[in-house]
């Protein structure tokens, strides 16, 4: 009986701790990284950047200037990028701003806040196709964050503070 309960608890624990869907997508090693200019991609362009295998820990945050909770948590991502740069952590900010606001809102926002993380712009209206490729459980609500390193992946449809984000990043450091 005792044994059964142990097994039961173990099973439950397992159920709740399954890593998020790991997707085996062909990896394009030739993709270059972008530093200074605003890079606008469709999902086919973004996909290789969500599936690199270079031992770097990528913190990929989906955001937009019109998304208030996204703006609120951006400083935490910027600080994580700074504080963990020496530990091979890289922050990617994937903007979902509307194309007609790239010049009027997005570029001024990046300049005003002097964002240091790498910024990519995803312009792909067919969310029904690409959202599940980021994570099978993502409803499409932002903010949303993917942390991955090689084949280890975790997806979060939630907001972060510096502390909660640090906790998640550290799980990738201690593996």
């Amino acid at each position, binding site marked *: 009986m005792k044994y059964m309960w142990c097994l039961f608890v173990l099973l439950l624990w397992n159920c709740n701790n399954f890593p998020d869907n790991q997707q085996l997508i062909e990896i394009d090693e030739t993709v270059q990284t972008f530093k200074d200019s605003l890079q606008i991609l469709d999902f086919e362009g973004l996909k290789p950047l969500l599936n690199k295998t270079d031992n770097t820990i990528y913190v990929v945050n989906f955001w937009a200037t019109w998304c*208030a909770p996204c703006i609120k948590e951006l400083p935490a991502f910027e600080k994580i990028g700074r504080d963990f740069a020496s530990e091979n952590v890289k922050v990617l900010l994937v903007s979902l701003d509307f194309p007609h606001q790239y010049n009027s809102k997005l570029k001024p926002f990046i300049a005003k806040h002097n964002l240091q993380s790498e910024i990519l712009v995803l312009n792909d209206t067919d969310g029904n196709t690409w959202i599940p490729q980021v994570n099978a459980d993502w409803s499409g609500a932002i903010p949303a964050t993917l942390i991955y390193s090689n084949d280890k992946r975790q997806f979060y449809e939630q907001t972060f503070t510096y502390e909660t984000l640090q906790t998640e990043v550290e799980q990738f450091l201690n593996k």
Partner: protein
Amino acid sequence: MKIFKITTLFFGLLAFFILTNTVEAQGYKVGDMATDFSLKNIDGNMVSLKNYPDAKGFIVVFTCNTCPYSVAYEDRIIALDKKYAAKGYPVIAIMPNNPDLQKGDSMDAMKARSKSKGFTFPYLMDAGQKIFPQYGARKTPHVYVLQKVDAGSQVKYIGAIDDNYQDVNAVNQKYAENAVDALLEGRDIKEKQTRAIGCTIKR
């Protein structure tokens, strides 16, 4: 026999935990029965699904004033109501955000928005934010197409209105319309669940 009992108890409990966890985390799935509600409309009246005895079903849209995606879809939501209310599938819009956190979604702001856009459908406040978690809405806009069956209102479609929020003229798939058309014609809905980017519900 004892082993059998323990095993039954074990799997029973396991099933119970999985089921309850799923309902809390995910809300409705296609095929589930949707709860009725009594929510205040912008005209001050309370609105429930049971107020529509002649409806064949409903297009329930969780939407708000302040999300750019919701705003981008306002005209299309009005068009849905104009096209399908007469066919028995009226739009019921529910504003799920906490207006204390999102001033632009107060009842007064909802009234003003409805008036300026000429909403033809009820625009309800999910006061206390009790209804959207039951449905499992996670963002605005988020659509639930319900069909009346003997047991109540059954969820038939969950997801996006269509596949292009930027340009109505570039839409390839009108997911919500396709779902209602299929119900009206007694066909199976091809895409019962779709996804789109949206704004997190503020709670």
